């Protein structure tokens, strides 16, 4: 019935295909280009001819790269693994896979994805022994070099900044969620005017520019020696994140019927026990979703970390800007590009795993007000 109702004329269908296709290119091209450039030598990466950037002729001559066969094999494997990954929930439900086996499944996918590169290369090599060196199938034509990543992570010590970022984000997520769930639960279960005013004030606080807040912190933090300490940034980001966290968690708690905690209270639990043993176990989807958004706020932050952290304790995003402060050579720029690609990779994984939760989190706030 729906199908018939919405049968679209061909012209309109074509327009829709064009719009969606055009958007997909615009959405992904800047990021894709970033990744392509990060694997080339400077002379290829900054070439004006896009095909040279993609193929990297000089890179493949001097460093080496993938042959056509290797690339096709790798892409096919990755596509197959992605299909498996996309249907994971179906398989898990069908074969009743437990958590342990699920983790093994993910690790297996990861191992296969990583193995596909040397394996495909090996096949290509063997074929080249068979066919001779100079044929278009096995000659390295897609130049690749990992030297910028190596320089960024090991020579420039980007792993330190990575660890700092991880510490800050983990701290922010765990503290935000702990105090956020407590408050949001109480706010969802109360209709006193206190609850209303707290939510309203939180809304006002959400709109505050972060630079204004940091202006307030800087003098006392410098005075008390908190400047440059990761814990200071964690506390600040938790506070900045609180309004958003309690609004979002509250809307998830509102979906859990209050009769459930009433029943627990009748059975002799106190509020805290009811909260911990009855409500929290069914709140996990909401907690995970809110946790994701807290993670992104901390991970993506530039302003607070740039102003409050310095030197050894610096996180990844402010650190990347320091590549532009020195006299930038083309190699420096490519290292910045490789660093940027490294920062983006975890985000990519996050969307891959948690697409559904992110969408539900975004709509939750909107639909429930």
């Amino acid at each position: 019935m729906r199908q018939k109702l919405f049968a679209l004329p061909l012209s309109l269908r074509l327009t829709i295909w064009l719009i969606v296709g055009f958007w997909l290119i615009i959405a992904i091209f800047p990021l894709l280009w970033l990744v392509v450039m990060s694997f080339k030598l400077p002379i290829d990466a900054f070439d004006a001819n896009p095909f040279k950037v993609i193929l990297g002729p000089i890179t493949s001559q001097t460093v080496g790269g993938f042959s056509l066969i290797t690339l096709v094999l790798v892409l096919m494997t990755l596509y197959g693994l992605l299909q498996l990954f996309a249907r994971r929930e179906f398989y898990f439900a069908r074969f009743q896979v437990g958590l342990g086996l699920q983790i093994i499944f993910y690790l297996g996918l990861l191992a296969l994805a990583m193995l596909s590169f040397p394996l495909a290369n090996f096949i290509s090599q063997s074929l080249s022994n068979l066919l001779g060196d100079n044929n278009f199938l096995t000659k390295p034509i897609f130049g690749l070099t990992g030297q910028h990543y190596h320089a960024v992570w090991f020579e420039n010590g980007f792993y330190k900044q990575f660890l700092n970022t991880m510490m800050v984000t983990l701290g922010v997520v765990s503290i935000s969620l702990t105090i956020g769930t407590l408050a949001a639960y109480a706010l969802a279960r109360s209709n006193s005017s206190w609850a209303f005013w707290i939510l309203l004030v939180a809304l006002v606080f959400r709109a505050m520019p972060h630079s204004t807040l940091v202006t307030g912190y800087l003098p006392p933090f410098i005075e008390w020696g908190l400047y440059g300490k990761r814990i200071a940034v964690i506390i600040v980001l938790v506070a900045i994140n609180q309004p958003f966290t309690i609004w979002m968690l509250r809307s998830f708690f509102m979906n859990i019927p209050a009769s459930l905690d009433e029943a627990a209270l009748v059975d002799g639990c106190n509020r805290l026990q009811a909260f911990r043993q009855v409500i929290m176990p069914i709140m996990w989807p909401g907690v995970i979703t809110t946790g994701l958004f807290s993670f992104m706020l901390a991970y993506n932050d530039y302003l607070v970390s740039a102003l409050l952290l310095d030197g050894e304790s610096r996180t990844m995003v402010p650190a990347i800007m320091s590549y532009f402060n020195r006299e930038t050579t083309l190699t420096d720029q490519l290292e910045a590009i490789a660093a940027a690609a490294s920062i983006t990779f975890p985000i990519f994984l996050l969307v891959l795993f948690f697409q559904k939760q992110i969408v539900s989190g975004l709509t939750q706030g909107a639909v429930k007000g």
Partner: protein
Amino acid sequence: MIKARTFFFFVAPSLLMMLVFIAGPLVSVLIQSFQQTQNVFETVEQQKCDPFGCKTTTVTRPIFDEEGKAITQTKWVGWENYRVVLNLAGVRAALASPEGKLKSLLAIDFWGALRFTLTFTLVTLPLVLLVGLILALSVNSLNEGLRGGVIFVTLLPFIITPVIGALAIRWLFVGDGIVTAGLEHLLKQDIAFFAQGWTIELLMLFYRVWHVAPFAFVIFYAALQTVEGEKLEAAKVDGASRWQTLRYVILPHLMPLMVFVSLIHLMDSYRVFDEIVGFNAQAFRQSLQWLTFDFLTPDDAGNRSIGRASATAMLTMIGIFFLLIPLLRNTWQERQR
């Protein structure tokens, strides 16, 4: 219902965090905006002797304490910080000048930043709504099997670290970036995207729409799933064209969400900051939040202008309250119902 005592017990940690780390700083920023902290100087007479005789000169130098830190002094300066930031004398001179009044006015940091922030906010808003709506309608009429992949790709520009997203677009255009090179090839002339303000501003607008349209898309797309099929059928039976169905059934259904997305977008884009960093635009375009950030960044001598940063921050807040009024009114009305 939860008892009052239990309620406060649960809310306390979160409330304390917000009071100490959001309300507290706001008050201290207000106070700081009327103060100035400076090194304390002393004037000493120094005698310099050379073969031709001795000369006495007076030198001003900062006083240091035993630990070698410069002693500072905080003074109450009234509206001085505001006067410096707003540069009223400059404004008067700009308005009195016979030609290019607006141009010389916008050359003053604060007024230029205000102009950019407002333009940025107001220009991106309709674009974000429009792109989000078109995408939601298009994806909604796509085959079911394709939607998941399209949503995945669409989420990427939204989730990505803003500074990195801005950098990714900048690298396409900067110098002989691939898009610039392509345009130069097509138009047969030299193009420099980062040599003048308006092209950078255009790129920043593009970036923001690229970054936020997915958010509008997700919200609208979710809402499209809840349009009642019966209403659509009724419209069809009544002979409504596709356009009329969109105009009179679907858009009214989306209206509250359009308001929601607009309010969130206004709040967020008024705080525009990451673009300035990512596009390295500060020589040409500054935003209000960037001005505060700039005052807070230590200068070459290692000093921060906390007072001026506070004054800029307070001036920025005035705009926030205007933006908040509709949102607060909405919440209030919901409470009354």
